[in-house]
């Protein structure tokens, strides 16, 4: 597989990941990711269709518990690290911009 890392793709990935990358960062990441992706793409050489995927190293079963209130944070604890809070809630800036 030929890697297709372009500055446009990196900028788009930054939007998806909610990171406001500068032009200088986009340029640097494009070159670095190109080299890295070229190297790691070799996983597809051995990953043939007959091999099952492993998402988790030790087989897991679903864990059930009684539907009872356990240990929880108080509202004060939950808000104690908030950058901004008001009326017992997290406060953020506008959800929608003017053009939206």
């Amino acid at each position: 597989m030929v890697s297709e890392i372009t500055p446009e793709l990196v900028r788009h990935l930054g939007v998806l990941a909610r990171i406001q990358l500068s032009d200088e960062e986009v340029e640097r990441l494009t070159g670095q990711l190109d080299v890295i992706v070229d190297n790691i793409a070799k996983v597809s050489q051995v990953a043939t269709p007959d091999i099952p995927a492993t998402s988790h190293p030790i087989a897991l079963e679903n864990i059930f518990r009684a539907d009872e209130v356990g240990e929880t944070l108080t509202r004060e604890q939950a808000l104690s690290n908030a950058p901004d809070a008001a009326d017992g809630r997290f406060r953020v800036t506008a959800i929608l911009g003017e053009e939206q």
Partner: protein
Amino acid sequence: MTDLTRLSAAALADKLAAGEVSSVDATQAHLDRIAEVDGDVHAFLHVSDHALAVAADIDRRRAAGESLGALAGVPLAIKDVLVTTDMPSTSGSKILEGYMSPFDATVVARSRAAGLVPLGKTNMDEFAMGSSTEHSAYGPTRNPWDLDRIPGGSGGGSAAAVAAFEAPLALGSDTGGSIRQPAHVTGTVGLKPTYGGVSRYGAIALASSLDQVGPVTRTVLDAGLLHDVIGGHDPHDSTSLAEAWPSFADAAREGARGDVLKGLKVGVIAELPDSGFQPGVSASFRAALATMEAHGAEIVEISAPHFEYGVAAYYLVLPAEASSNLAKFDSVRFGLRVTPHANSTVEEVMAATRDAGFGDEVKRRIILGTYALSAGYYDAYYGSAQKVRTLIQRDFDAAFTQVDVIATPSAPTTAFKLGEKIDDPLQMYLNDVTTIPANLAGVPGISIPSGLAEEDGLPVGIQFLAPAREDARLYRVGAALEAALVDSWGGPLLDRAPVVGTRGGVR
């Protein structure tokens, strides 16, 4: 008077139990040592301002006749990836600067309950992404063997703290080698438990299917003692295994008697030729194997044909999981908030915050993970990487039908110079080639000192891997080889480390 900082945790615990020394004395000795050397080493991001009060309470309880844990009163350093209620927890990142957790990580809570005395929080690569601690937002840690060299990573702070005698014990976390590779480059001991053997609750997640918390110490017995404190099922971690574990300290004591090497089958991997390693690393590894043979072990060549794909699979699985785990740093509930202008929308604030708060390596891996998970690439990258995990597990399964443990050098080279690989991320990633397969397969691994490399006089570690759930085997084998090597050296390897602490002062 004995220098209390030079004692193993086990020896210090014996003196505490016998009433020969107090926990206040032991804690003060380590705080003094931190003040003396941490300006040079920079193992700690935060030193507790109430460790002496905690120690005094242990002394009071002991004097009152209370039954205390085996390690009660022994100081402990805690990797900053583990959240603590009484000290900031940053995971080495600016985005969490000053963060005070409302709860303790389970391993921290268990350490406190066992009477261990938290000394402080140790430095690490940001969010545990790195092999050198150079990616810490708070400046690198330096290797006590040579202050111009890396202490390994991501847990370089924990390893350097025990290597520089600033703490007898430390907690680490290992996602791709972050406990074992720092042990290798600092002449210390580190063990990554079986996945699920130790709770991850309160360990700030990097890659949830790979992360494991484990002990960082100077001796195998000390690692077993700490593992006994932190291990076992935790209802707060749904991936934590429910089974009862044997005492790992007992396993280490049994191993130190030496008989376990007799007839032990030790696998060496044909596809991981040590010709590719630094000559001194390879020579130290071969010498350690010869010592094992001399004590009755049998060296068997095994095949693990898919290990060479391990690094590639890891650098797809890890960024994919990390990009998801780190989405929580959104400027809303905790951590940094950067507001670019008065009318910024919450989305603009998030993007500006994450650009300002994350370092280069974190951004690199989030972008890589976002790419690997994006439509059109998922099957080729993330899907294939998950298949490689299956293939590596099969390699382990086949190998462990032939041998009891697998041995490798813990890393390809001794400690490299600070700055040497910082601009070449791929070279930094390839440094993890020996440690990554254990995380991908969930099996336990230990690194113990095997000697010094002849060309640079720096420490080398040997890694042992065992089947999942067989952590006790690693303690037996590790302690057996440790006993044989320390005997042949005439003392612990760290006795030969240069003395740090001439410049002094906490930075």
